[in-house]
Every structure is written in structure tokens, then in C-alpha cells.
């Protein structure tokens, strides 16, 4: 089970090697903070609010909270 991220800083990251580029995360992102090309994807840091919707929507768990963002 996923844990909640702290606020205020880029805490969500995509593991691009494992991404299938399906766009599910882009569809749920309320801030237009994910850029998806044919086979590349990135989070636009300045737009991301760490709402974590992309993490939950990802069918294959390639979007994660990075370690420093996870509360113990």
C-alpha cells in the first residue's frame, strides 16, 4: 500500500525505464504537470502539487513517491 507524501516539494517521480507511456497519469493530473511524448515522459516540477492522483491511477506502479517524500 502507498503512503502519503509530505507537501511542498517534488516528491513524485516516474520510473521511465518501466513506463508504458499509456497516458493514464496525464488524464488524471489536475495541473497539466506531466508531459508525455511517444516514448518519453516527465513531471514538470513547477506545476506538480504532489496531489498523488497519478500515483494511484498508474496501472503498473511506475509512478512513486520518492524516498525523502515518504512519511515513515
Amino acid at each position, binding site marked *: *500500500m502507498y503512503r502519503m507524501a509530505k507537501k511542498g516539494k517534488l516528491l513524485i517521480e516516474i520510473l521511465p525505464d518501466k513506463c508504458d507511456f499509456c497516458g493514464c497519469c496525464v*488524464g488524471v493530473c489536475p495541473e497539466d504537470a506531466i508531459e508525455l511524448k*511517444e516514448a518519453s515522459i516527465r513531471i514538470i516540477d513547477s506545476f506538480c502539487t504532489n496531489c498523488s492522483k497519478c500515483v494511484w*491511477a498508474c496501472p503498473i*506502479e511506475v509512478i512513486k513517491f520518492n524516498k525523502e517524500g515518504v512519511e515513515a
Partner: protein
Amino acid sequence: MKNEYDIIVVGAGPAGTTAARFAAEQGVSVLVLEKDRDVGYPVRCAEAINKRTADEFIKPNDKWISSHISKFSFISPNNSEVLIDFNSVQGYILERKIFDYELAKIASNAGAEIITKAYVNGLLLEGQKVSGVTAEYRGQQINIKSKIVIGADGTESRVGRWAGIKTHVHLKNMESCFQVTASNISVEPDTLYFYFGKNVSPGGYFWVFPKSCTTANIGLGISGLEGKEKSALAYLNDNLARLFPHASILTQVAGGVPCSITLEKITSNGIMLLGDAARQVNPLSGGGIASGMIGGRIAGIIAAEAIRKNKLDHIFTYEKAWYNERGKMHEVFNRLKEGIYSFTDEDFNKIMEKFQKVPLSKRTIGKLFRIALANKPSLLIDISKVFLV
């Protein structure tokens, strides 16, 4: 590629190329830009379409039809199965790679220009009005002008957002999907199988859509909210291990299907949204090919009329036209979806048990829904509107 067109369509899926075709048939200039290198690939789709709609747009051909569907099978959480036999072909399982190509060829023969590997990354604006797109093409940033931009850029649509339209999907309504195409299995090639249950596919369903007796698209969608606990991939692995332990996996693909009512606003100055991008998917089934093509036909015709009459405001009639043809029905489907996904496993089991008592010759989808929603009279009225009239 020129640097100016009447209409630019972003995305070369079935919705985009259908819009391009119907616009080009009226003699206006149309450019379709696709971000991927191929039209029709990768296939992020379970590939089922109803026959009636498909036949409206393209003559059936076994080149792109893998199987002809005449039966539905519903499997309850306790593994009892009920079959509906329509006694005639109701739908196809497509070979999307070829189907999308054929649709693109039809658009292209009608006069539309199609370019792949062109990544649209912004809109050109003249005041408040959209006047073209910016794109990355062969390593260069280019500007292409147009009177109308049609955003058919799928689940991951950003075109609408750039025009200030709120398009993001509520997490609950985003079906988080994973699918494999598997062989070394045994299925009836004329039957679509739907499995329900909270351990099978919560807030969605698990599907087996046959491409032959031994091959099928096997996948599932779960509500995005359910992904907090367990991912679509994890559910699929569990279902495969239980039901098809000897399957060989030929392809695997992730995807997101927006299962909601259509966006409130699908038109703005100089811009129209279409297909998955406009959230025109049938929210009950998650099917988006047929509704995207229907949306494409409406949008393409209206966009071309707007150009020919030199009255760009005409594109605002698209919203009403869509609503009357499909949008209204999707509102009913959405209420049904919400009713069904509020069921517990016990509810599903009871419904299937009741439905099993209906003689095979009298089973219809309408009847199934009537049983399913017998304790929700308000929904019954909705269903009767859709299925019984």
C-alpha cells in the same frame, strides 16, 4: 506539409481520422498530426466494437475483423456464468493495427493529409482564438496555422487544457487498465466474457475478448481510486494465475479509459475536442471506438461547414449535436455504471442467480439490467429509455 490548413486534427486514432475524413469530403484542407511513429500502433484497446456502428463507417472486411461476436457471458464473483445469445452477429473484435490504418487511408483518400511522428506541444493563439499548433517534427520546432484545431489526442489529451478547457478526469472515473494478448488458452471465439467482483476488478470489470479459439485480449480496468490499494497489473496477474495459468503472453499494454459523462465544454474559440479527449467514451462499457467515430463524424462535418460558410462560431453547434446523438445516452449509461459499481459481491451473485432462471431464449441485456436494478426504481426508468424503446 504546408504551413497553413483550414483544419488541423491532433491525433490519428479512429476519432481523429474520422473527423478528418468527413471534413475533407467537403473539400476543406485538413492536416492530421500523430505523435507516434505509426497510425494504429501501439494498440491500447480491448478492440471490441458494435457491428452496427462499425458498418456505418467502413465495409466489413476480415482483414481487420478477428472475430464475430454473437454472445455475451457474465461471470459472477462466485464463478457462476450466465450466457446471453443474440443469435446474430452484434459486434467485432478488431485488429486495430489494420482497422486504424484503413480509417486513415479513407481519410487520406478523401483528401486529408496525415503526418506521423509529429508531436504537438502547444497552440497558436490570436487573442482569445486558437489559430494553429506548434509541433516538434524531425527535430525542429514548427508552427502550423489553421482556422480550427480538433483535439483528438486521447486519454492523455492536453490540447483542450492549453485552450483553457478543464479536461482532467476525476480519479474515480479513470479506469486504470492493463491487458495482455494471450495464446494457449481455450475460449469460444463468438463470445465476450465479462467477470465482476471486488477481488477480480473493483470498480470495473475483467474481460476476455477472443481473437480466435486460442487467443484473446485479456485485461481489466479498475477505478483509479482502487489503485490506492492495489494496481491494475497486480489484479490482472492474480486473475491470469487463477483462470489462465498456462497462457502465453504475446503482448502487454497499460492504458487509461475515462469512464464519465462527456466534458461540459468540448468547444472553444477555434477548437473542438473529440473522442477520449472529450471524454466521449461510453462510460458503462468503456468502449470508445464507436463513440469516437460518431463524435468524429459530427465534428468533422460541422468544422467543414464552419469553414465553408466562413462562420467560425458555427462550431459551437457541435456540443448540442453531440449531446443529442450520444451525450444524453451517456448520462444514462453513467448513472447505470454508478449503480452497478455500488453493488457488493453478494449483489452480483444474487443477480446472476436470478438471471440464470430466465430461459436462454428470453435473455437480453435489458432484462439483465432490469433484474440488476430491480431495487432501484429510478434507474429502471432510465434503462427502459435506452433499451426498451
